[in-house]
């Protein structure tokens, strides 16, 4: 499903003319299989988010190749990447990243609008999905009228609405209390099992990582040696 091969990336930090080179990704290689939950674990600053950004096509790594669903992402231009994301990826962010001016329903509806789905079809599928994530009661609420857990459910629904094969979650429970965290993790597991969606979860939290089928541990831009990534 996802092949990451020898990915390197270096950031330039500091004032112009006196930049320091900071290598963030150092020759990363791994694969993600269809239908599994993979966790990328590591301390803050180890380069997890940067790795996700390269896979998602938000940025291009300096070196290395990333292939998703047989498509090498480096070969795509901006517009093609956007379309590729729309069709293949869903995103769950730490701070939910909902549109403040849209209701829960409209937030979930947004990717379908981008895809050009008709209003009638949208209504039925959004309703269905909101029911599945347990939000039918608050469909008309705006994000600031929802709890953190509810907001994250909205964002999960938004990520799922287009039925993408892959979901990325960057610290999905980072802004939630531990009880709500459990709810969300259960939801993710449920969605993985019932819908067969592949999850790539990025977290510094071992608790979160525990739901994964496989774990990759990152340290200073590298996968920790000896960590095979297979179920521990």
């Amino acid at each position, binding site marked *: 499903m996802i092949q990451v091969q020898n990915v390197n990336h270096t950031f330039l930090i500091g004032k112009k003319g006196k930049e320091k080179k900071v290598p963030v990704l150092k020759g990363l290689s791994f694969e993600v299989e269809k239908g599994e939950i993979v966790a990328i674990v590591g301390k803050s600053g180890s380069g997890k988010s940067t790795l996700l*950004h390269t896979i*998602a096509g*938000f*940025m291009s790594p300096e070196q290395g190749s990333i292939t998703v669903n047989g498509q090498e992402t480096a070969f795509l231009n*901006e*517009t093609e990447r*956007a*379309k590729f*994301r*729309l*069709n293949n*990826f*869903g*995103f769950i*962010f730490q*701070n939910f*990243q909902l*549109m*403040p*001016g849209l209701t829960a329903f409209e937030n979930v509806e*947004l*990717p379908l*609008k*981008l*895809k*050009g789905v*008709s*209003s009638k079809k949208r209504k039925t599928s959004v309703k269905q999905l909101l029911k599945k994530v347990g939000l039918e009661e608050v469909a008309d609420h705006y994000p600031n009228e929802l709890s953190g857990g509810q907001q994250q459910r909205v964002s999960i629904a*938004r*990520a799922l609405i287009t039925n993408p094969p892959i979901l990325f979650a960057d610290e999905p429970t980072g802004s939630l209390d531990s009880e709500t965290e459990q709810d969300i993790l259960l939801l993710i597991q449920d969605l993985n099992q019932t819908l067969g969606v592949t999850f790539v979860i990025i977290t510094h939290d071992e608790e979160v990582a525990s739901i994964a089928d496989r774990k990759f541990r990152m340290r200073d831009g590298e996968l920790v040696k000896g960590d095979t990534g297979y179920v521990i």
Partner: protein
Amino acid sequence: MLFKDQVDFVSQHIKKNKLRVFMTILAATMGCAFLIVLASIGFGIQDTMRKEILEDQAITEVEVYPNDGEELDISKIGAVEHVNAIVQRTRMEAMAVSQIENRSLEGNMLLTNFAQEEKSNLKLSEGRMPTKDNEIVVGYQFAENLLTDAERKEMEQSTEEDAEPIGGYKESLIGKTVSMSLQSYESEEAFSETWDFTIVGVTEKPAKDWIVDTNILLDESWKDKLQEVYEVNMEEGNTDLFFSSTKIYTSSLEHVKSVTEELKEMGYSVYSVSEQLEQLDVFFMAFKIGLIFVGTIAVLISSIGIFNTMTMAVTERTREIGVMKAIGASPKLIQRLFLMESAWIGIIGTILAVIISYAVSFLANWILPMVVGSALGEEEFQDLSMTFSLIPWQLVVIASIISIGVAMISGWRPARKATKIDVIQALRQEL
């Protein structure tokens, strides 16, 4: 994204920032309305002058002059398409002294062909066209200038500049017999030969107030007889005794131009209303372009507002744009959404501006004549039929293109900026 959803998306954003968008639209409206109203003055004055030209004269008339020493080839001119009538009036360089009862008038004689005059649509205020040799048509002011000796004396003594005509012939001249004799400009006395004519028609009031028409229109067959009499009475003949002017009448105004062109090609000097209108149009084309240019500056100034508003909108929504891009909105779509927003501002501004401009134009045409009229005094007030401001649809189209175009151009950079927003940076922004 479906177009309807794009429109929804844009209108949702506009609703969120009502006041800001309203102020921007207001600026766009003012700029565009200024442009339309300013240019409408050019259109209005042109319209007034066109009307003046078309009212003041026979609009289907084409004056044609031969080159020095040449003659007009009447048959060739007659063959030109759409030529309706060729009226050649020949003026005799001698006074015609007319006598009715105890009244007399010294005027001029014009020899013409009444058949052609009739075809040219010569309008009479009274009577009919002559059919016999001894029938004539006289000028509109012929009657009021038929004076008795006493009246003439009184007139000469009157010091007032524009005193009302004293006396004159009060009854209708139709059917009256006038006895006419010739008198050279140099001599004191009229020649002894006299002819009796019957007045059958009176011409229409001249278009211009200052023209006094006391001419006698007489059939051209009289030319030889008149010349003979003149030469008998004067020792030396006058080579320039007759002076012809030729006017051609086309079947309608639209053919004036083609006839004018064709006559010019024949090598004649030509003068027609189309010539005059053309010069007027050339002048006003330049004038209107100048006004539109000045008005466009106002539109450009208002576009700074649009630029600011859109830049603000993009900056404010950086995070949202980032999320949109992350979940799969293409840069093209994002650019289009912002361009639609600035176009919307431009379109609403233009629509309001057009409505306001028509109102201002209407008020100006209603109030300004009163103001100008009262400044000029009561009398002119009546005649003042001026259009100060005219907004033809072409002006609306031009102004709309400029206004909406400028709005979209000024929204272009902010829209480009929106497409360039970095997803990672945008997502990092605090809520």
